[in-house]
């Protein structure tokens, strides 16, 4: 049973909370129910005490994202051809180009969305995974808050991909000028998608589980 008298959780009372509709369902033991064996009586969703295999899945996705982040930044994201001249630009070269041309608001937007946000997101996930695995019970509230922040900002990294799509659509004037998406766009797009899946597979309740057993 729970060692701390003041903290009564779904787990300590052996109640499974439906992630889709919030209905509580009693279960025989507070330790994991086999995946998909119990379903919510209101909405039919599969019930779990915690997300299935949360830490392993998040680790796998995070490591994949970190590996793909390297080609995403080294390979060109766009290939511009103008009058027979082809120019490749990586994300960082794009940022530098705008800084040199005095377009610093655009440089700041692209730097934040394409470089800062993915790095921040991967660093935060790494910190959350390690702190949960080491069984830390410190600063649970702060860790939950930063988790909510990365859940919210992850999607904004897609800006640069959308900019490429729009430019590809616009600048298709044959021999005069054309813009094509580079290999880097593929890897970058994969990084954004995979980090979104990684933060979705991390169960924030794991942060708090340790606080209860420590009392």
């Amino acid at each position, binding site marked *: 049973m729970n060692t701390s008298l003041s*903290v*009564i*959780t*779904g*787990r300590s*009372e052996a*109640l499974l*909370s439906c*992630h*889709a*509709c*919030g209905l*509580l369902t009693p279960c025989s033991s507070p330790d994991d129910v086999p995946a998909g064996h119990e379903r919510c009586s*209101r*909405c*039919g*969703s599969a019930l779990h005490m915690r997300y299935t295999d949360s830490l392993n899945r998040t680790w796998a996705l995070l490591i994949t994202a970190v590996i793909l982040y390297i080609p995403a930044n080294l390979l060109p994201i766009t290939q511009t051809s103008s009058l027979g001249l082809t120019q490749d630009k990586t994300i960082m070269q794009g940022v530098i180009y*705008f800084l040199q*041309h005095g*377009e610093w*608001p*655009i440089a700041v*937007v692209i730097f934040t969305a394409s470089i800062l946000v993915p790095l921040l997101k991967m660093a935060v996930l790494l910190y959350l995974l390690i702190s949960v695995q080491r069984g830390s019970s410190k600063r*649970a*509230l702060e860790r*939950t808050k930063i*988790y*909510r922040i990365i859940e919210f900002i992850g*999607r*904004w990294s*897609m*800006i*640069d*991909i*959308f*900019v490429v*799509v*729009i*430019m*590809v*659509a*616009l*600048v*298709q*004037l044959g021999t*005069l*000028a054309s813009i*094509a*998406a580079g290999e880097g*766009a*593929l890897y970058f*797009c*994969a990084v954004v*998608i995979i980090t*979104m899946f990684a933060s*979705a597979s991390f169960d*924030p*309740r794991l942060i*708090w*589980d340790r606080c209860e057993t420590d009392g």
Partner: protein
Amino acid sequence: MYDDAILQSVVVACPDCDLLNQVPELVPGDSAFCIRCNATLARNPKDGLERGLALTCTAAILFVVANVFPFLSFGMDGLVTHTTLVTGIVGLYNQGMVFVAAVVAVTIVIVPTLVLVGLMYLLFPLRSGRCLPGSELVIRWIIRMYAWNMVEVFMIGIVVAAVKLHTMAVLIPGLAAWSFMLLIFVFAWLSISVDVRVLWSRLEAAR
């Protein structure tokens, strides 16, 4: 109508920290938060269903306009290109960027379409206290897909692309660009006007 008693007092486990919270009956406009981690546990938006339905229909109209009409017209050396969303996706596909094209199609076209159609399927009958078959499945899928609707991110993309290209060509924002702009606000308003807990309790009452 019966907006007042729609959320009865109920015990819920916080989705972020698992603490059991007693959520009181909420009057329209009120929200309940977890006492330990401050996560939002339930909201009862004012005129939830009516406003939700009105916003869903507005979003649907704007979304059709955003997809059908050109969002930017691009003039360079006398040549004018009109661009729609579909041209961009097809362009990427033709360059062999199948994965990127698919991601853009899913996040900008398919997910918003499914979310809006799903909401209409739920909200129209619920207004008169009825529900259509498969409503549970529809809500579950809306919850699952919601994070993958990136229309507002795309709008910022349009602005950045316009600034990037303005030195090399004349750019004229089209009807679709204004629709995307309005969609940001309509989607944001929609997500605070419709609460899944309210939908579930309405659905239970309708059966």
